[in-house]
């Protein structure tokens, strides 16, 4: 185990670090305004990274698409001839994700390495260094956040290579979490003033937890599944689901996909077999060729998503919930569906 290692860096120093990352030809991805939304974009100039903005606003979509793109070829073909595909893997720094997102990546790792290794996901993971921003600003946490209810923590370092948090008005605490993080820092620290520190985000940010209005523990749902499975309460909570799939698209851990062949327009017999994001909330997702659909009703599909997160994944892979409590699904839902609210109601714990 690496000994614990952190330092204080000024705002200016952090800006320099970002400039060095760019100067070293890393591909830098960070939250950036794109139209109305904050999303992970390729950064070309250091000033495009607006620290206050990324500290205070959660991106609309999660960073999962850096590793698991919404569409990607898994093989190409020309007539009867197949060609293998390698995912593009430039050395990448993913900057400014939240601890819930970082944890989500660790949960996805289990899916994409379960017996069969998905090289498309794994090679991108290997080529990427994760610089996480702990939820350390008063505005980092909003009324949708509930990581504390699913075993998460707004200051956790799990899944991160480097962890940043605010340290007073004009400085940041920079913690080295992994050797990968240390390598990045060592290669990009010229001109960055680092003042050794013995602090940790987790120790000095206890107060941020008071910002959470959603603190109920959702994990107990998995222990009493049969009791909750046919709950009328759950039907009432989910019957208005439209099946649009925005919850799955914005989720850092939803990983269902489809595999289809897409012929290339304007060619004869050229194309690619592609992996596309899919969602269990879509009506055709489970429909059999014979016409039978095991999840005929929208509320059953909604239940599948909730329970896959909170009961099935923990049963299959680890004791952890697949939901990380980022709140993106409820922020985006056009009909105000809310996994936290639905599950707390089912658990009989009332409105948050």
């Amino acid at each position, binding site marked *: 185990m690496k000994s614990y290692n952190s330092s204080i860096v000024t705002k200016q120093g952090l800006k320099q670090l970002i400039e060095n990352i760019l100067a070293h030809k890393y591909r830098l991805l960070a939250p950036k305004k794109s139209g109305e939304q904050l999303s992970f974009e390729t950064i070309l100039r250091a000033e495009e990274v607006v620290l206050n903005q990324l500290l205070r606003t959660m991106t609309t979509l999660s960073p999962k698409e850096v590793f698991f793109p919404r569409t990607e070829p*898994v*093989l190409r*073909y020309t*007539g*009867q001839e*197949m060609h*293998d*595909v390698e995912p593009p893997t430039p050395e990448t720094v993913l900057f400014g994700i939240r601890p819930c997102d970082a944890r989500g990546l660790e949960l996805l790792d289990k*899916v*994409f390495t*379960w*017996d*069969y*290794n*998905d*090289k498309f996901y794994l090679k991108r993971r290997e080529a990427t260094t994760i610089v996480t921003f702990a939820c350390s600003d008063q505005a980092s946490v909003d009324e949708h956040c509930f990581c504390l209810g699913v075993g998460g923590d707004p200051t956790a370092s799990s899944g991160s290579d480097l962890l940043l948090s605010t340290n007073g008005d004009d400085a940041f605490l920079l913690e080295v979490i992994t050797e990968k993080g240390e390598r990045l820092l060592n290669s990009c620290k010229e001109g960055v003033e680092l003042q050794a520190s013995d602090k940790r985000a987790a120790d000095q940010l206890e107060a941020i937890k008071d910002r959470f209005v959603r603190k109920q523990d959702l994990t107990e749902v998995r222990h009493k*599944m*049969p009791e909750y*499975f046919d709950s009328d309460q759950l039907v009432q909570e989910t019957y208005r689901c439209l099946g649009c799939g925005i919850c799955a698209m914005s989720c850092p851990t939803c*990983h*269902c*996909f*489809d*595999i*289809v*062949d897409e*012929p290339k327009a304007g060619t004869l*017999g050229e*194309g690619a*077999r592609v*992996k596309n994001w*899919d969602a*269990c909330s879509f009506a055709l*997702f*489970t*429909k*059999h*060729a*014979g016409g*039978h659909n*095991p*999840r005929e009703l929208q509320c*059953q599909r909604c239940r*599948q998503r909730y*329970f*896959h997160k909170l*009961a*099935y994944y923990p*049963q*299959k892979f680890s004791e952890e919930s697949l939901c990380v409590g980022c709140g993106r699904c409820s922020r985006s839902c056009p009909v105000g569906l809310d996994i936290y609210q639905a599950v707390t109601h089912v658990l009989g714990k009332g409105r948050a």
Partner: protein
Amino acid sequence: MCTNNIYYPYQMKLTEIRDETHDIRTFKLEHVDPKLKESFTFLAGQFGLYSILGEGEATFCIASAPTKQGYIECSFKKVGKVTTALRSLEVGDLVGFRGPYGNAFPIEQMLRKNILFVGGGIGLAPLRSLIDNVLDRRAEFKAVTILYGARSTADIIYREQLAAWEARSDVRFEKTVDQLRPQDEGKWSGHVGLIPHILSKMSVSAENSVAVVCGPPIMIKFTIAELNRLGFNDSSIITTLENRMKCGFGKCGRCNIGGTYVCKDGPVFSASDLKGLPDSDF
């Protein structure tokens, strides 16, 4: 060939086509790579993803027995884009194949027992792999009974095979159709009626027996109930599911039921496994 891309299929050559019914066709496929043809193995009950470049992939079980080496067979009904495209292929054409995936029938646990096979419609395909496997090792099992049912005489598959099973003195073979069409009058030697009903009249013993059931979900449901009534307990009733699948190896999420993935934890389950699943219709 590609070793680290789990989505990359083997190429197989279509060497024989048999029409089972007006819409069900069987393909015999052989590996193009001679080394693979030699080394490829699978177990009865496993499945694969069959594909045509430009059209896509579809999931079917392997319908031939693992004891028949050098080729695999699959049977499919024309229902969608990929199966329609597969139907247009001719002998000599290439088919992509990924697999074998999934668990297998617990044949070792069936040794020295009476085996009752109950197949409905195209659900006979996965059973056929096991039935042939069992018949190729006939001495290791006690009584073998096969009940096969189809919607009508026009929907019966594997006719030659059925006749061969029927002709064997060491196999009890019963067949039924849901309804007899007028043109079948006087020509049908089997039963008429739904599988659970015929089963109830067959006086099969549950003693030291295993029942293996496959067919449409509704048939499986009522057959399990009938088997229970005959004294089979849930752990001695084996079935195989074919949920919609895309990847075949536990990533795409499609076949997830409760904490179970049909593609990895199945497709073969006991009735007691099924009854423990939250979304189960059984």
